[in-house]
Protein backbone atom coordinates (compact mmCIF):
# COMPACT_ATOMS: atom_id res chain seq x y z
CA UNK A 1 0.00 0.00 0.00
CA UNK A 2 2.73 2.43 1.01
CA UNK A 3 4.68 1.26 -2.04
CA UNK A 4 1.80 2.25 -4.30
CA UNK A 5 1.38 5.66 -2.71
CA UNK A 6 5.10 6.41 -2.98
CA UNK A 7 5.25 5.24 -6.58
CA UNK A 8 2.26 7.25 -7.75
CA UNK A 9 3.45 10.32 -5.87
CA UNK A 10 6.89 10.26 -7.46
CA UNK A 11 5.56 9.22 -10.86
CA UNK A 12 3.11 12.13 -10.89
CA UNK A 13 5.85 14.58 -9.94
CA UNK A 14 8.20 13.14 -12.57
CA UNK A 15 5.75 13.28 -15.45
CA UNK A 16 4.29 16.63 -14.37
CA UNK A 17 7.66 18.33 -14.07
CA UNK A 18 8.82 16.80 -17.35
CA UNK A 19 5.81 18.25 -19.13
CA UNK A 20 6.40 21.62 -17.50
CA UNK A 21 10.08 21.43 -18.38
CA UNK A 22 9.60 21.23 -22.12
CA UNK A 23 7.06 24.03 -22.19
CA UNK A 24 8.77 26.83 -20.25
CA UNK A 25 10.10 29.96 -21.93
CA UNK A 26 12.80 30.67 -19.39
CA UNK A 27 15.65 28.19 -19.45
CA UNK A 28 16.21 28.49 -15.69
CA UNK A 29 12.63 27.41 -15.04
CA UNK A 30 13.15 24.44 -17.35
CA UNK A 31 16.30 23.53 -15.45
CA UNK A 32 14.48 23.67 -12.14
CA UNK A 33 11.71 21.44 -13.44
CA UNK A 34 14.25 19.00 -14.80
CA UNK A 35 15.83 18.94 -11.35
CA UNK A 36 12.45 18.07 -9.85
CA UNK A 37 12.03 15.28 -12.40
CA UNK A 38 15.47 13.92 -11.55
CA UNK A 39 14.70 14.01 -7.84
CA UNK A 40 11.41 12.17 -8.46
CA UNK A 41 13.29 9.56 -10.48
CA UNK A 42 15.70 9.19 -7.59
CA UNK A 43 12.66 8.60 -5.39
CA UNK A 44 11.52 5.83 -7.74
CA UNK A 45 14.96 4.25 -7.49
CA UNK A 46 14.68 4.35 -3.71
CA UNK A 47 11.26 2.74 -3.91
CA UNK A 48 12.80 -0.04 -6.00
CA UNK A 49 15.35 -0.62 -3.22
CA UNK A 50 18.19 0.65 -5.41
CA UNK A 51 19.64 2.87 -2.70
CA UNK A 52 23.08 3.29 -4.23
CA UNK A 53 21.62 4.44 -7.51
CA UNK A 54 19.30 6.81 -5.64
CA UNK A 55 22.18 8.62 -4.04
CA UNK A 56 24.39 8.46 -7.15
CA UNK A 57 21.55 10.07 -9.11
CA UNK A 58 21.34 12.89 -6.57
CA UNK A 59 25.09 13.46 -6.32
CA UNK A 60 25.90 13.19 -10.03
CA UNK A 61 22.78 14.22 -11.88
CA UNK A 62 21.27 16.82 -9.58
CA UNK A 63 24.36 18.02 -7.76
CA UNK A 64 26.64 17.84 -10.78
CA UNK A 65 24.97 17.97 -14.16
CA UNK A 66 22.14 20.29 -13.22
CA UNK A 67 24.48 22.69 -11.42
CA UNK A 68 26.55 22.69 -14.63
CA UNK A 69 23.42 23.45 -16.66
CA UNK A 70 22.43 26.31 -14.40
CA UNK A 71 25.97 27.72 -14.49
CA UNK A 72 25.91 27.73 -18.28
CA UNK A 73 22.42 29.21 -18.42
CA UNK A 74 23.59 32.04 -16.21
CA UNK A 75 26.75 32.67 -18.20
CA UNK A 76 24.87 32.67 -21.49
CA UNK A 77 22.49 35.58 -21.66
CA UNK A 78 19.15 34.08 -22.62
CA UNK A 79 16.85 37.07 -22.32
CA UNK A 80 16.79 37.46 -26.10
CA UNK A 81 16.06 33.79 -26.60
CA UNK A 82 13.14 33.92 -24.16
CA UNK A 83 11.34 36.45 -26.35
CA UNK A 84 11.52 34.35 -29.50
CA UNK A 85 9.19 31.62 -30.67
CA UNK A 86 9.97 28.61 -28.55
CA UNK A 87 8.83 25.78 -30.81
CA UNK A 88 10.30 24.82 -34.16
CA UNK A 89 8.30 24.57 -37.34
CA UNK A 90 8.05 20.80 -37.23
CA UNK A 91 6.25 20.66 -33.91
CA UNK A 92 3.02 19.05 -35.13
CA UNK A 93 4.77 16.34 -37.15
CA UNK A 94 7.04 15.65 -34.19
CA UNK A 95 4.08 15.40 -31.83
CA UNK A 96 2.20 13.00 -34.10
CA UNK A 97 5.20 10.76 -34.60
CA UNK A 98 6.02 10.71 -30.90
CA UNK A 99 2.47 9.75 -30.04
CA UNK A 100 2.65 6.99 -32.64
CA UNK A 101 5.83 5.70 -30.99
CA UNK A 102 4.17 5.92 -27.60
CA UNK A 103 1.18 4.01 -28.90
CA UNK A 104 3.33 1.22 -30.32
CA UNK A 105 5.45 0.70 -27.22
CA UNK A 106 2.46 1.08 -24.96
CA UNK A 107 0.59 -1.55 -26.88
CA UNK A 108 3.54 -3.89 -26.58
CA UNK A 109 3.70 -3.42 -22.82
CA UNK A 110 -0.05 -3.86 -22.54
CA UNK A 111 -0.09 -7.06 -24.54
CA UNK A 112 2.99 -8.62 -22.98
CA UNK A 113 1.32 -8.46 -19.60
CA UNK A 114 -1.62 -10.45 -20.89
CA UNK A 115 0.12 -13.34 -22.68
CA UNK A 116 0.59 -16.12 -20.13
CA UNK A 117 3.96 -17.76 -19.90
CA UNK A 118 5.43 -15.64 -22.66
CA UNK A 119 7.36 -12.46 -22.54
CA UNK A 120 9.58 -11.18 -19.82
CA UNK A 121 6.96 -9.55 -17.69
CA UNK A 122 5.58 -12.61 -15.97
CA UNK A 123 8.61 -13.65 -13.95
CA UNK A 124 8.44 -13.60 -10.19
CA UNK A 125 9.84 -10.71 -8.26
CA UNK A 126 12.77 -11.05 -5.87
CA UNK A 127 11.51 -10.32 -2.37
CA UNK A 128 12.86 -7.13 -0.86
CA UNK A 129 14.27 -8.82 2.23
CA UNK A 130 16.32 -11.34 0.31
CA UNK A 131 18.27 -8.74 -1.63
CA UNK A 132 21.93 -8.31 -0.69
CA UNK A 133 22.97 -4.87 0.58
CA UNK A 134 22.59 -2.71 -2.46
CA UNK A 135 25.84 -0.77 -2.47
CA UNK A 136 27.81 -3.98 -2.08
CA UNK A 137 25.91 -5.72 -4.86
CA UNK A 138 26.51 -2.88 -7.30
CA UNK A 139 30.16 -2.70 -6.27
CA UNK A 140 30.61 -6.46 -6.81
CA UNK A 141 29.07 -6.05 -10.22
CA UNK A 142 31.12 -3.00 -11.18
CA UNK A 143 34.47 -4.30 -9.98
CA UNK A 144 33.83 -7.87 -11.06
CA UNK A 145 32.39 -8.74 -14.45
CA UNK A 146 32.15 -5.15 -15.67
CA UNK A 147 35.60 -3.92 -14.70
CA UNK A 148 36.56 -3.18 -18.30
CA UNK A 149 33.51 -0.97 -18.81
CA UNK A 150 34.39 0.79 -15.57
CA UNK A 151 37.87 1.61 -16.82
CA UNK A 152 36.54 2.73 -20.20
CA UNK A 153 34.03 4.98 -18.43
CA UNK A 154 36.83 6.61 -16.44
CA UNK A 155 38.78 7.13 -19.67
CA UNK A 156 35.65 8.65 -21.19
CA UNK A 157 35.37 11.08 -18.29
CA UNK A 158 39.00 12.09 -18.73
CA UNK A 159 38.44 12.76 -22.42
CA UNK A 160 35.27 14.72 -21.66
CA UNK A 161 37.10 16.82 -19.06
CA UNK A 162 39.86 17.70 -21.50
CA UNK A 163 37.32 18.40 -24.23
CA UNK A 164 35.20 20.65 -22.04
CA UNK A 165 38.24 22.63 -20.85
CA UNK A 166 39.50 23.11 -24.41
CA UNK A 167 36.04 24.03 -25.66
CA UNK A 168 35.48 26.67 -23.06
CA UNK A 169 38.85 28.38 -23.31
CA UNK A 170 38.91 31.79 -24.90
CA UNK A 171 42.25 31.31 -26.64
CA UNK A 172 43.21 27.74 -27.48
Amino acid at each position, binding site marked *: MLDKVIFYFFAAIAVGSALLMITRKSA*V*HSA*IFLTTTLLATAGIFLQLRAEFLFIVQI*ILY*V*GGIMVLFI*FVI*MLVNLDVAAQQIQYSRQKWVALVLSLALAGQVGAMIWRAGKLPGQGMLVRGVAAAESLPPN*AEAVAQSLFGPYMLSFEIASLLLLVAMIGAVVMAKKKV
Partner: protein
Amino acid sequence: MMNHLYELLKIVLASPYTLPVIYGIVIVAVLPLVAGYVVLVERKVMADMQARLGPMRVGPHGLLQPIADAIKLLLKEDIIPEKADVWIFWLAPLISVTAGMLALAPVGIGPAFQIAKDIDVGILFIAGISSLGIFGIVLGGWASNSHYSLMGALRSAAQLVSYETAAGMALVSGLLLGGSLQIRALVEEQAKQGVWFVALAPIAFFIYLVASIAETNRAPFDLPEAESELVAGYMTEYSGFRWSLYFLAEYANMMVVGSVATTIFLGGWLRPFSSVGGAAGRAIDTVPGALLLGVAAYCLYRAPKQPVTVQKLVMVAVAGLCAVVAAALLAPVFVAQALWMMPAIHGAFWFLLKVGGYIYLFMWLRFTLPRYRFDQLMRLGWYFLIPVSIVNVMGIGIALVLHWERGMNLALALGLTTLMTLAVAAVLVRAELKREEQLRQAASGDAYAG
Protein backbone atom coordinates in the same frame (compact mmCIF):
# COMPACT_ATOMS: atom_id res chain seq x y z
CA MET B 1 -14.76 6.95 21.89
CA MET B 2 -11.86 6.67 24.33
CA ASN B 3 -11.47 3.05 23.26
CA HIS B 4 -11.08 4.11 19.64
CA LEU B 5 -8.46 6.66 20.60
CA TYR B 6 -6.63 4.07 22.68
CA GLU B 7 -6.61 1.63 19.78
CA LEU B 8 -5.35 4.35 17.45
CA LEU B 9 -2.64 5.27 19.92
CA LYS B 10 -1.53 1.66 20.17
CA ILE B 11 -1.33 1.36 16.37
CA VAL B 12 0.58 4.62 16.08
CA LEU B 13 3.04 3.70 18.83
CA ALA B 14 3.67 0.26 17.40
CA SER B 15 4.30 1.51 13.90
CA PRO B 16 7.97 1.69 12.94
CA TYR B 17 7.46 5.12 11.44
CA THR B 18 6.41 6.87 14.62
CA LEU B 19 9.73 7.43 16.32
CA PRO B 20 11.52 8.68 13.18
CA VAL B 21 8.66 11.09 12.50
CA ILE B 22 8.89 12.39 16.08
CA TYR B 23 12.65 12.83 15.79
CA GLY B 24 12.15 14.58 12.48
CA ILE B 25 9.60 16.98 13.92
CA VAL B 26 11.87 17.63 16.91
CA ILE B 27 14.81 18.40 14.66
CA VAL B 28 12.84 20.72 12.39
CA ALA B 29 11.31 22.52 15.36
CA VAL B 30 14.41 22.67 17.52
CA LEU B 31 17.05 23.32 14.87
CA PRO B 32 16.29 27.04 14.37
CA LEU B 33 16.54 27.59 18.13
CA VAL B 34 19.76 25.62 18.37
CA ALA B 35 21.20 27.48 15.38
CA GLY B 36 20.29 30.76 17.02
CA TYR B 37 22.13 29.79 20.19
CA VAL B 38 25.12 28.59 18.16
CA VAL B 39 25.22 32.11 16.73
CA LEU B 40 25.19 33.49 20.26
CA VAL B 41 28.02 31.14 21.23
CA GLU B 42 29.93 32.30 18.16
CA ARG B 43 29.54 35.93 19.13
CA LYS B 44 30.63 35.21 22.69
CA VAL B 45 33.64 33.20 21.47
CA MET B 46 34.52 35.99 19.05
CA ALA B 47 34.30 38.46 21.90
CA ASP B 48 36.44 36.27 24.11
CA MET B 49 39.13 36.07 21.47
CA GLN B 50 38.97 39.81 20.96
CA ALA B 51 39.18 40.55 24.73
CA ARG B 52 35.67 41.89 25.10
CA LEU B 53 32.36 40.61 26.40
CA GLY B 54 29.99 40.18 23.47
CA PRO B 55 26.22 40.58 23.65
CA MET B 56 25.33 41.38 27.26
CA ARG B 57 22.27 43.58 27.07
CA VAL B 58 19.38 41.45 25.93
CA GLY B 59 18.56 39.10 28.76
CA PRO B 60 21.04 38.11 31.42
CA HIS B 61 24.48 37.84 29.85
CA GLY B 62 22.86 38.19 26.44
CA LEU B 63 21.07 34.84 26.64
CA LEU B 64 17.94 36.19 24.98
CA GLN B 65 19.88 37.72 22.07
CA PRO B 66 18.86 35.00 19.57
CA ILE B 67 15.20 35.49 20.46
CA ALA B 68 15.53 39.23 19.91
CA ASP B 69 17.31 38.62 16.61
CA ALA B 70 14.63 36.20 15.48
CA ILE B 71 11.83 38.66 16.31
CA LYS B 72 13.67 41.44 14.52
CA LEU B 73 14.21 39.34 11.41
CA LEU B 74 10.61 38.23 11.31
CA LEU B 75 9.32 41.77 11.56
CA LYS B 76 11.65 43.26 8.94
CA GLU B 77 10.30 44.50 5.66
CA ASP B 78 10.29 41.86 2.96
CA ILE B 79 12.03 43.47 0.00
CA ILE B 80 11.89 41.85 -3.41
CA PRO B 81 14.03 43.51 -6.08
CA GLU B 82 12.36 44.86 -9.18
CA LYS B 83 12.35 42.40 -12.10
CA ALA B 84 13.51 39.61 -9.83
CA ASP B 85 12.09 36.21 -10.61
CA VAL B 86 9.66 36.00 -7.69
CA TRP B 87 9.13 32.23 -7.67
CA ILE B 88 12.82 31.41 -7.72
CA PHE B 89 13.55 34.23 -5.25
CA TRP B 90 11.11 32.54 -2.89
CA LEU B 91 12.34 29.01 -3.67
CA ALA B 92 16.10 29.44 -3.28
CA PRO B 93 16.37 29.85 0.52
CA LEU B 94 13.88 27.00 0.90
CA ILE B 95 16.14 24.67 -1.05
CA SER B 96 19.14 25.62 1.08
CA VAL B 97 17.37 25.14 4.37
CA THR B 98 15.63 21.92 3.30
CA ALA B 99 18.91 20.40 2.14
CA GLY B 100 20.58 21.42 5.39
CA MET B 101 17.89 19.90 7.58
CA LEU B 102 17.41 16.79 5.45
CA ALA B 103 21.11 15.99 5.70
CA LEU B 104 20.65 15.61 9.45
CA ALA B 105 18.32 12.65 8.96
CA PRO B 106 20.82 9.76 8.89
CA VAL B 107 23.09 11.35 11.47
CA GLY B 108 23.25 9.20 14.55
CA ILE B 109 23.44 11.44 17.58
CA GLY B 110 23.66 8.34 19.63
CA PRO B 111 22.97 4.69 18.97
CA ALA B 112 19.32 5.35 19.71
CA PHE B 113 18.68 8.67 17.98
CA GLN B 114 18.68 8.20 14.24
CA ILE B 115 15.87 9.23 11.95
CA ALA B 116 16.85 7.21 8.90
CA LYS B 117 18.03 4.02 10.53
CA ASP B 118 20.28 1.62 8.73
CA ILE B 119 20.09 3.37 5.43
CA ASP B 120 22.49 1.45 3.29
CA VAL B 121 24.34 4.48 2.00
CA GLY B 122 24.32 6.74 5.06
CA ILE B 123 27.42 8.85 4.57
CA LEU B 124 26.86 9.17 0.84
CA PHE B 125 23.33 10.39 1.54
CA ILE B 126 24.65 13.24 3.65
CA ALA B 127 27.24 14.16 1.01
CA GLY B 128 24.62 14.08 -1.72
CA ILE B 129 22.05 16.17 0.09
CA SER B 130 24.74 18.72 0.97
CA SER B 131 25.43 19.03 -2.74
CA LEU B 132 21.76 19.92 -3.18
CA GLY B 133 22.42 23.03 -1.10
CA ILE B 134 24.50 24.45 -3.94
CA PHE B 135 21.26 24.92 -5.84
CA GLY B 136 19.89 27.22 -3.18
CA ILE B 137 22.93 29.45 -3.48
CA VAL B 138 23.10 29.61 -7.25
CA LEU B 139 19.37 30.16 -7.74
CA GLY B 140 19.33 32.77 -4.99
CA GLY B 141 22.08 34.73 -6.63
CA TRP B 142 20.45 34.52 -10.04
CA ALA B 143 16.95 35.36 -8.89
CA SER B 144 18.06 38.59 -7.29
CA ASN B 145 18.62 40.16 -10.70
CA SER B 146 21.70 41.94 -9.42
CA HIS B 147 25.29 41.78 -10.63
CA TYR B 148 26.81 41.42 -7.18
CA SER B 149 24.49 38.60 -6.27
CA LEU B 150 25.16 36.70 -9.49
CA MET B 151 28.93 37.05 -9.17
CA GLY B 152 28.83 36.05 -5.52
CA ALA B 153 26.60 33.08 -6.28
CA LEU B 154 28.80 31.83 -9.11
CA ARG B 155 31.92 32.21 -6.99
CA SER B 156 30.32 30.46 -4.06
CA ALA B 157 29.04 27.61 -6.20
CA ALA B 158 32.44 27.18 -7.87
CA GLN B 159 34.07 27.07 -4.43
CA LEU B 160 31.57 24.53 -3.12
CA VAL B 161 31.90 22.26 -6.13
CA SER B 162 35.70 22.35 -6.00
CA TYR B 163 35.96 21.47 -2.32
CA GLU B 164 33.26 18.84 -2.54
CA THR B 165 35.66 16.61 -4.48
CA ALA B 166 38.39 16.97 -1.87
CA ALA B 167 35.92 16.39 0.96
CA GLY B 168 34.54 13.31 -0.75
CA MET B 169 38.00 11.83 -1.25
CA ALA B 170 38.89 12.49 2.38
CA LEU B 171 35.68 10.74 3.42
CA VAL B 172 36.55 7.81 1.15
CA SER B 173 39.82 7.40 3.05
CA GLY B 174 37.87 7.07 6.27
CA LEU B 175 35.32 4.77 4.60
CA LEU B 176 38.05 2.44 3.37
CA LEU B 177 39.10 1.94 6.96
CA GLY B 178 35.51 1.54 8.05
CA GLY B 179 34.46 -0.88 5.36
CA SER B 180 30.87 0.25 5.05
CA LEU B 181 28.77 3.26 4.16
CA GLN B 182 26.34 2.74 7.03
CA ILE B 183 26.75 5.16 9.91
CA ARG B 184 26.19 2.58 12.60
CA ALA B 185 28.66 0.18 11.00
CA LEU B 186 31.36 2.88 10.85
CA VAL B 187 31.09 3.67 14.54
CA GLU B 188 30.99 0.00 15.45
CA GLU B 189 34.08 -0.60 13.35
CA GLN B 190 35.88 2.11 15.31
CA ALA B 191 34.72 0.43 18.52
CA LYS B 192 35.97 -2.90 17.23
CA GLN B 193 39.38 -1.61 16.24
CA GLY B 194 39.57 0.28 19.51
CA VAL B 195 40.96 3.42 17.89
CA TRP B 196 39.31 6.41 16.29
CA PHE B 197 40.02 6.70 12.58
CA VAL B 198 41.60 10.12 13.11
CA ALA B 199 44.61 8.32 14.55
CA LEU B 200 44.77 5.98 11.55
CA ALA B 201 44.20 8.62 8.85
CA PRO B 202 45.13 12.05 10.27
CA ILE B 203 45.75 13.61 6.87
CA ALA B 204 42.30 12.62 5.71
CA PHE B 205 40.86 14.32 8.80
CA PHE B 206 42.86 17.46 8.10
CA ILE B 207 41.75 17.53 4.45
CA TYR B 208 38.17 17.03 5.51
CA LEU B 209 38.48 19.81 8.07
CA VAL B 210 39.74 22.29 5.47
CA ALA B 211 37.29 21.15 2.82
CA SER B 212 34.34 21.32 5.20
CA ILE B 213 35.23 24.88 6.18
CA ALA B 214 35.11 25.72 2.49
CA GLU B 215 31.92 23.71 2.01
CA THR B 216 30.04 25.75 4.58
CA ASN B 217 31.36 29.08 3.31
CA ARG B 218 33.06 29.84 6.61
CA ALA B 219 36.12 31.98 7.09
CA PRO B 220 38.82 31.90 5.89
CA PHE B 221 36.89 30.74 2.81
CA ASP B 222 33.95 33.10 3.13
CA LEU B 223 34.82 35.45 0.27
CA PRO B 224 31.49 34.91 -1.51
CA GLU B 225 29.46 36.03 1.45
CA ALA B 226 31.57 38.34 3.56
CA GLU B 227 30.09 41.76 4.11
CA SER B 228 33.09 43.60 2.81
CA GLU B 229 33.28 41.66 -0.45
CA LEU B 230 30.70 41.87 -3.19
CA VAL B 231 28.25 43.30 -0.68
CA ALA B 232 27.49 39.90 0.89
CA GLY B 233 27.35 38.02 -2.40
CA TYR B 234 24.31 35.88 -3.08
CA MET B 235 22.59 37.06 0.09
CA THR B 236 22.68 40.72 -0.88
CA GLU B 237 19.06 41.17 -1.86
CA TYR B 238 17.61 38.95 0.82
CA SER B 239 16.26 40.64 3.92
CA GLY B 240 14.32 39.60 6.98
CA PHE B 241 12.94 36.10 7.09
CA ARG B 242 14.47 34.89 3.83
CA TRP B 243 17.92 35.94 4.97
CA SER B 244 17.40 34.13 8.24
CA LEU B 245 16.61 30.98 6.24
CA TYR B 246 19.97 31.21 4.47
CA PHE B 247 21.65 31.85 7.78
CA LEU B 248 19.89 28.87 9.31
CA ALA B 249 21.00 26.77 6.35
CA GLU B 250 24.62 27.77 6.93
CA TYR B 251 24.56 26.77 10.59
CA ALA B 252 22.67 23.57 9.83
CA ASN B 253 25.38 22.76 7.28
CA MET B 254 28.01 23.38 9.93
CA MET B 255 26.32 20.89 12.21
CA VAL B 256 26.05 18.38 9.38
CA VAL B 257 29.74 18.49 8.47
CA GLY B 258 30.60 18.36 12.15
CA SER B 259 28.45 15.26 12.51
CA VAL B 260 30.02 13.58 9.48
CA ALA B 261 33.56 14.29 10.70
CA THR B 262 32.66 13.04 14.17
CA THR B 263 31.08 9.85 12.83
CA ILE B 264 33.90 8.88 10.53
CA PHE B 265 37.00 10.25 12.19
CA LEU B 266 36.25 11.03 15.81
CA GLY B 267 34.47 7.87 16.86
CA GLY B 268 30.86 8.99 16.72
CA TRP B 269 29.18 8.27 19.99
CA LEU B 270 32.02 6.30 21.53
CA ARG B 271 33.72 7.59 24.60
CA PRO B 272 37.48 8.01 24.50
CA PHE B 273 39.23 4.68 25.07
CA SER B 274 35.98 2.85 24.45
CA SER B 275 37.64 -0.57 24.43
CA VAL B 276 38.99 -0.15 27.94
CA GLY B 277 36.62 -1.79 30.38
CA GLY B 278 36.70 -2.37 34.12
CA ALA B 279 37.63 0.29 36.64
CA ALA B 280 39.38 2.62 34.18
CA GLY B 281 36.34 2.45 31.91
CA ARG B 282 34.03 3.38 34.74
CA ALA B 283 36.31 6.23 35.70
CA ILE B 284 36.05 7.63 32.15
CA ASP B 285 32.30 7.09 32.25
CA THR B 286 31.99 9.40 35.23
CA VAL B 287 33.69 12.21 33.32
CA PRO B 288 30.53 13.58 31.60
CA GLY B 289 28.62 13.79 34.86
CA ALA B 290 31.60 15.21 36.72
CA LEU B 291 32.12 17.82 34.01
CA LEU B 292 28.55 19.03 34.25
CA LEU B 293 28.63 19.00 38.04
CA GLY B 294 31.73 21.16 37.83
CA VAL B 295 29.89 23.61 35.56
CA ALA B 296 26.95 23.65 37.96
CA ALA B 297 29.25 24.29 40.91
CA TYR B 298 30.96 27.14 39.07
CA CYS B 299 27.60 28.71 38.23
CA LEU B 300 26.56 28.49 41.88
CA TYR B 301 29.88 30.02 42.92
CA ARG B 302 29.46 32.97 40.57
CA ALA B 303 25.78 33.48 41.28
CA PRO B 304 26.14 35.75 44.35
CA LYS B 305 28.63 37.94 42.50
CA GLN B 306 26.18 38.98 39.76
CA PRO B 307 25.17 42.64 39.91
CA VAL B 308 21.49 42.17 39.03
CA THR B 309 18.95 39.87 40.71
CA VAL B 310 17.69 38.45 37.41
CA GLN B 311 21.19 37.39 36.50
CA LYS B 312 21.59 35.73 39.89
CA LEU B 313 18.41 33.76 39.35
CA VAL B 314 19.46 32.74 35.84
CA MET B 315 22.82 31.51 37.11
CA VAL B 316 21.10 29.40 39.77
CA ALA B 317 18.67 28.05 37.16
CA VAL B 318 21.53 27.12 34.83
CA ALA B 319 23.29 25.44 37.72
CA GLY B 320 20.13 23.48 38.48
CA LEU B 321 19.77 22.42 34.83
CA CYS B 322 23.38 21.24 34.67
CA ALA B 323 22.91 19.34 37.91
CA VAL B 324 19.84 17.56 36.55
CA VAL B 325 21.64 16.56 33.34
CA ALA B 326 24.66 15.47 35.38
CA ALA B 327 22.40 13.29 37.48
CA ALA B 328 20.97 11.74 34.32
CA LEU B 329 24.50 11.08 33.10
CA LEU B 330 25.78 9.64 36.36
CA ALA B 331 22.74 7.51 37.07
CA PRO B 332 23.55 4.68 34.60
CA VAL B 333 27.12 4.47 35.93
CA PHE B 334 26.27 4.08 39.59
CA VAL B 335 22.73 2.71 39.56
CA ALA B 336 22.53 -0.74 37.99
CA GLN B 337 18.83 -0.49 37.15
CA ALA B 338 19.48 2.50 34.90
CA LEU B 339 22.16 0.76 32.85
CA TRP B 340 19.88 0.48 29.80
CA MET B 341 19.96 4.26 29.46
CA MET B 342 23.73 4.29 29.22
CA PRO B 343 24.39 3.93 25.47
CA ALA B 344 21.70 6.43 24.52
CA ILE B 345 22.49 9.23 26.95
CA HIS B 346 26.24 8.88 27.19
CA GLY B 347 26.48 8.34 23.45
CA ALA B 348 24.50 11.49 22.80
CA PHE B 349 26.71 13.44 25.24
CA TRP B 350 30.00 12.35 23.69
CA PHE B 351 28.68 12.90 20.16
CA LEU B 352 27.45 16.41 20.95
CA LEU B 353 30.70 17.18 22.75
CA LYS B 354 32.75 16.18 19.73
CA VAL B 355 30.54 18.06 17.28
CA GLY B 356 30.71 21.06 19.59
CA GLY B 357 34.49 20.84 19.63
CA TYR B 358 34.59 20.67 15.83
CA ILE B 359 32.33 23.71 15.53
CA TYR B 360 34.45 25.53 18.13
CA LEU B 361 37.43 24.82 15.88
CA PHE B 362 35.51 26.43 13.00
CA MET B 363 34.87 29.53 15.09
CA TRP B 364 38.46 29.66 16.30
CA LEU B 365 39.72 29.60 12.72
CA ARG B 366 37.21 32.24 11.71
CA PHE B 367 38.51 34.76 14.19
CA THR B 368 42.17 34.01 13.65
CA LEU B 369 42.88 33.72 9.94
CA PRO B 370 42.47 36.35 7.24
CA ARG B 371 40.31 35.65 4.26
CA TYR B 372 41.53 33.87 1.12
CA ARG B 373 41.27 35.73 -2.16
CA PHE B 374 39.14 33.84 -4.64
CA ASP B 375 41.91 32.74 -7.00
CA GLN B 376 44.01 31.66 -4.02
CA LEU B 377 41.04 29.70 -2.79
CA MET B 378 40.60 27.88 -6.10
CA ARG B 379 44.33 27.19 -6.33
CA LEU B 380 44.29 25.71 -2.85
CA GLY B 381 41.38 23.48 -3.71
CA TRP B 382 42.45 22.21 -7.10
CA TYR B 383 46.25 22.31 -6.92
CA PHE B 384 46.79 21.19 -3.35
CA LEU B 385 43.84 19.55 -1.64
CA ILE B 386 42.60 17.37 -4.50
CA PRO B 387 46.03 15.87 -5.42
CA VAL B 388 46.86 15.27 -1.76
CA SER B 389 43.50 13.65 -1.11
CA ILE B 390 43.82 11.40 -4.18
CA VAL B 391 47.30 10.31 -3.10
CA ASN B 392 45.93 9.70 0.39
CA VAL B 393 43.14 7.45 -0.89
CA MET B 394 45.57 5.47 -3.02
CA GLY B 395 47.98 5.18 -0.12
CA ILE B 396 45.34 3.99 2.32
CA GLY B 397 44.10 1.47 -0.24
CA ILE B 398 47.61 0.09 -0.68
CA ALA B 399 48.15 0.02 3.07
CA LEU B 400 44.92 -1.90 3.60
CA VAL B 401 45.81 -4.42 0.91
CA LEU B 402 49.24 -4.90 2.50
CA HIS B 403 47.57 -5.39 5.85
CA TRP B 404 44.98 -7.86 4.63
CA GLU B 405 46.96 -9.82 2.07
CA ARG B 406 50.49 -9.68 3.44
CA GLY B 407 49.66 -9.40 7.11
CA MET B 408 51.57 -6.17 7.66
CA ASN B 409 50.80 -4.31 10.86
CA LEU B 410 48.02 -1.83 10.14
CA ALA B 411 49.55 1.01 12.13
CA LEU B 412 52.88 0.56 10.35
CA ALA B 413 51.30 0.50 6.91
CA LEU B 414 49.17 3.54 7.62
CA GLY B 415 52.16 5.34 9.12
CA LEU B 416 54.06 4.78 5.89
CA THR B 417 51.06 6.07 3.95
CA THR B 418 50.93 9.19 6.06
CA LEU B 419 54.62 9.82 5.46
CA MET B 420 54.22 9.37 1.73
CA THR B 421 51.26 11.73 1.60
CA LEU B 422 53.15 14.30 3.66
CA ALA B 423 56.04 14.03 1.21
CA VAL B 424 53.70 14.68 -1.74
CA ALA B 425 52.13 17.59 0.13
CA ALA B 426 55.60 19.02 0.85
CA VAL B 427 56.50 18.81 -2.84
CA LEU B 428 53.30 20.63 -3.80
CA VAL B 429 53.82 23.31 -1.15
CA ARG B 430 57.40 23.87 -2.33
CA ALA B 431 56.25 24.23 -5.92
CA GLU B 432 53.62 26.73 -4.80
CA LEU B 433 56.12 28.78 -2.81
CA LYS B 434 58.51 28.84 -5.76
CA ARG B 435 55.71 30.03 -8.03
CA GLU B 436 54.81 32.80 -5.64
CA GLU B 437 58.45 33.84 -5.41
CA GLN B 438 58.62 34.05 -9.19
CA LEU B 439 55.44 36.10 -9.34
CA ARG B 440 56.75 38.45 -6.69
CA GLN B 441 60.03 38.92 -8.57
CA ALA B 442 58.20 39.53 -11.81
CA ALA B 443 55.98 42.07 -10.10
CA SER B 444 58.84 43.89 -8.37
CA GLY B 445 60.90 43.98 -11.56
CA ASP B 446 58.08 45.64 -13.47
CA ALA B 447 58.68 49.38 -13.48
CA TYR B 448 54.99 50.23 -13.84
CA ALA B 449 53.68 47.92 -11.13
CA GLY B 450 51.97 49.59 -8.19
